[in-house]
């Protein structure tokens, strides 16, 4: 048993959210550059240049890329040989979120669903915990903004529609979302499992790097085909028209019930923020 103190967890969570909100990943920046070179629309190229400049300012001044610094979503892989000491694991994570959003001057966006009263410190965090072999803790922080999240959907398809039905639904979802989720977007697609499992797969898919293909060649081909169809919609950066509507799309597939075909589409904006650390 390896002992890990809750203070360490809190510190790591705090730093991850501050880092994720101010420093966009290299893979996303490279995709911006690609669009600046390749998009046919002059307005689109200009928007992409603005996004690149915005990322540079955020990195240099350590200020948030976007004012919507999201709800605090975490994927935690907890090694089964870790013994957590010093306090409650969940409290440690929420303390990290609280500190990160305070010290990093990040916006607190968590509120009561009906009174809309802000919780004041961006807690509670949304924590997805998995127990894995080993004595390490892997923490992935994903600040998730509201605009793109609102365009996401879960649908229980009829199995007969098959992969073609899945592709059509995803393309349509992106089309109907139009300019709302701040295109160019990244699309996470969860296929299979149950109702809630598909949504979780879709969110977790967003952690993959731009350009990363599914190991199953059939699924990888479907990803490429859907990305191509999406980028032919013409929506473009910010919806002003262009060929860069999504930067990438990631399918995650798992077995499902013989009567079902669950499908979740989780839309992420170009502020595709996520950072990870291992304790």
């Amino acid at each position, binding site marked *: 048993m390896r002992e890990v103190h809750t203070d360490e967890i809190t510190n790591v969570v705090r730093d991850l959210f501050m880092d994720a909100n101010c420093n966009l990943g290299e893979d996303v920046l490279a995709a911006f550059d690609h669009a600046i070179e390749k998009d046919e629309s002059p*307005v689109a190229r200009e928007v992409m240049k603005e996004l690149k400049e915005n990322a540079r300012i955020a990195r240099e001044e350590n200020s948030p890329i976007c004012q919507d610094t999201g709800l605090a979503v975490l994927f935690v892989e907890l090694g089964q040989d870790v013994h957590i000491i010093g306090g409650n694991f969940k409290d440690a994570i929420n303390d990290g979120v609280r500190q990160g959003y305070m010290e990093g001057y*990040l916006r607190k966006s968590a509120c009561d669903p009906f009174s809309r009263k802000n919780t004041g410190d961006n807690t509670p965090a949304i924590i997805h915990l998995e127990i894995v072999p080993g004595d390490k803790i892997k923490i992935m922080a994903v600040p998730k903004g509201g605009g793109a999240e609102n365009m996401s959907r879960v649908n229980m398809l009829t199995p007969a529609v098959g992969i073609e039905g899945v592709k059509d639904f995803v393309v349509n979802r992106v089309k109907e979302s139009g300019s709302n989720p701040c295109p160019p977007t990244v699309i996470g697609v969860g296929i299979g499992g149950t109702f809630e499992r598909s949504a979780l797969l879709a969110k977790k898919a967003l952690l993959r790097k731009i350009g990363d293909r599914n190991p199953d060649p059939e699924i990888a081909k479907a990803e490429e085909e859907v990305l191509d169809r999406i980028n032919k919609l*013409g929506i473009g950066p910010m919806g002003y028209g262009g060929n860069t509507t999504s930067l990438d799309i990631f399918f995650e597939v798992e077995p499902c019930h013989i009567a079902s075909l669950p499908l979740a589409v989780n839309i992420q*904006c170009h*502020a595709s923020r996520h950072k990870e650390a291992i304790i």
Partner: protein
Amino acid sequence: MSNKIELTTPLSTEDVEKLNIGDKVFLNGIIYTGRDAAHKRLIDLLNEGKELPIDVKGQIIYYMGPSPAKPGNPIGSAGPTTSYRMDAYAPKLIELGMKGMIGKGNRALEVIEAMKKYKAVYLGATGGAGALIAKSIKKAEIVAYEDLGPEAIRKLEVEDFPVVVINDTKGNDLYVEGAKKYSKE
């Protein structure tokens, strides 16, 4: 498409009538911020026949809730929020003489109709470019609903604040025309 125009608030009907979709506009002067919660309060006041805390005539409302300002800065990151959530409230304010809205994303038909009828425009700021947009905000002051935190109404002093015309006074829509132009479906 793509004329570059400078405008200073408050705006007149003539100012907005000359704008066309796709025009790049640099705004100067005062603009106000407001999101869902603030809009709800404004409309509630109007329904009760009471006066608004700001005079919207000739003004622009920016759909934005900033991140907290660091010491020494007027504001934190300050990009637009999605506009459709304000669609239920916007026509009433346009009728009262509001000349512009800044946000991102599609507007409802009623809003587009109100813009045509009472001469107002919908302007797009680059969503998610909050750190960059903050550079053109020189001063920020809360003028109403401080209890709403990031959703309070702020008065912003802006210099060369960059926006693109999405809906003009003639009923055109950049989202529709832009996608049409580049669609390969």
